[in-house]
């Protein structure tokens, strides 16, 4: 990458390269200007994304400095502790369940909502509003509201189950139901967000396709299965990646509603990291746990990259 400046990205009729490169940015100056413009953002990104990621890796091989005793290299000790830590395994298992319980459901609902709101249903403006509003609220506010709903006996959920003859139930205080309760909150909050992306994609599908299908006399379900859904595939992938990231990134509701309890039944990985690092102040172990999270996200990035790569090859 030397000499001529200006990336040759503009499609269409480009005049010969040298001709359209303005004198000022030709040669070495393009490098200087480019780097100068990028520098402020690059410094901050490096300081708060790349450096901490590397520092996490390094710190996971040290002990936590405590009361005058400095951190010392401990090799793989932190990792050994982690592999023997039942709470770590529990948090990983919970996070996997949580992802499986929330992602497919919110994506399916999002798609359904988008199809409805994009269709001919009466009052779709109001419907779109109802679906999307939870997205705008802070998760912490949402969690507060739902905490109230889940209150034993007094809350909305118990009021409704009482109509069907059920007794009071401590939804968030019982091991079997607490995580499921959190899942409902997440689905309620996220489906409307993902709906927006599907809606955007649906509006890009040319209406000609639907007209052609109508002339052919193909049914609606058939049309969805063979035309709409495949065309929405890139959107589904985009939404899926975002949903997975969110499943590991968002623990605000855990902080408000359960604090990981009862008996670690709602312990998610990031919340455990938060507890270890900022409640027990064991930052080295916190870093070790963060490495697991980083590995999961790196795997996700790799998977996405490979998928896109393959798709490009097949074209």
């Amino acid at each position, binding site marked *: 990458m030397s000499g001529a400046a200006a*990336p040759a990205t503009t499609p269409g009729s480009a005049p010969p390269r040298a001709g359209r490169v303005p004198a000022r940015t030709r040669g070495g100056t393009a490098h200087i200007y480019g780097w100068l413009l990028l520098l402020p953002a690059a410094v901050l990104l490096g300081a708060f994304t790349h450096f901490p990621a590397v520092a996490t890796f390094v710190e996971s091989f040290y002990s936590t400095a405590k009361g005058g005793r400095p951190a010392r290299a401990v090799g793989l000790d932190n990792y050994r502790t982690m592999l023997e830590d039942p709470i770590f395994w529990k948090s990983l298992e919970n996070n996997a369940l949580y992802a499986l319980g929330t992602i497919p459901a919110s994506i399916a609902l999002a798609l359904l909502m988008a199809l409805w709101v994009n269709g001919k249903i009466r009052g779709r403006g109001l419907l*779109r509003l109802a679906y999307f509003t939870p997205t705008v609220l802070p998760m912490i*506010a949402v969690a507060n509201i739902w905490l109230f709903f889940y209150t034993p006996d007094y809350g909305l959920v118990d009021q409704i189950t009482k109509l069907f003859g059920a007794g009071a139930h401590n939804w968030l205080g019982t091991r079997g139901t607490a995580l499921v309760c959190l899942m409902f909150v997440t689905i309620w909050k996220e489906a409307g967000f993902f709906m927006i992306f599907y809606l955007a994609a649906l509006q890009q599908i040319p209406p000609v396709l639907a007209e052609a299908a109508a002339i052919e006399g193909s049914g609606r379900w058939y049309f969805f299965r063979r035309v709409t859904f495949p065309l929405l595939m890139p959107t589904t992938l985009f939404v899926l990646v975002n949903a997975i990231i969110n499943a590991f990134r968002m623990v605000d509701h855990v902080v408000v509603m359960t604090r990981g309890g009862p008996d670690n039944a709602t312990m998610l990985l990031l919340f455990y990291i938060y507890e270890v690092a900022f409640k027990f102040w064991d930052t080295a172990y916190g870093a070790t746990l963060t490495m697991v999270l980083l590995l999961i996200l790196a795997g996700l990035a790799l998977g996405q990259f490979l998928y896109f790569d393959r798709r490009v090859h097949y074209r």
Partner: protein
Amino acid sequence: MSGAAANPLGGSGRLGLLLESAGAWLLGLIWAAPLLYAIWTAFHGAEFAARLQLAAPLTLENFVKAWDAAPFARYFLNSFILVTSILAAQLVLSTLAAFAFARFAFVGRDVMFALVLVQLMIMPDILIVENYRTMRALALPDTILGIGLPYMASAFGIFLLRQTFKGVPRELDEAARVEGCTLLGLLWKVYVPLAKPVYIAFGLVSVSFHWNNFLWPLIITNSVTTRPVTVGLSVFASTDQGIDWSIITAATLMTSGPLLIAFLLFQRQFVQSFMRAGIR
């Protein structure tokens, strides 16, 4: 559009459409219920918190009590400063970086762009342990700058603006240069105005994200003068109030209020912005 979309219904007919409408409305009702119920609770006395009676008298007392019980005015100010400073920094930094990526062929550009994209996957939200350490080295815990700094360079903003800037016709760029425009003048007079819808979209997404952000502010702040509303609300709800749900719900609505009202007023822009931000 709607005319064409009606046709594929052919097979299922009117009854199917009716059933679907019912389903859509049922789901809409389920989705709206929690918020509506919260609004009901907040505007009625505690004795009606779990009882729906149409004749129950409306009251603003819960809001008054909540407002008096915690320094919410200060929390709002903190959130406002936080959100505006993050957005201002993001806009400037992303614009400069995106311009570099879109129009300059400098050494290492592709590698740098790949490194920028890393932040889309590994966000500051999960690097809390090490970022806290960095903040302590910079003496920034318990400051508003400390909350905002990790977010001020946004890969998302750089990515969105780079795509937009790449679409600016070269002829415009060259015409401005021929007229003797400086580089920054070119950016300001040609590129930025053409990207206005993208700026609005990014701005709305950024403001709602940072107004709602919770975990990192919870970790890094420790006093009334720095806490944003989300953290203020959690402190208020967990310690001061016990279980008076009417007041907690009023406080909850209050903290989401500005964003919620803005959303209801500019619904179309919000939805379109989120859409625009999602299309890559």
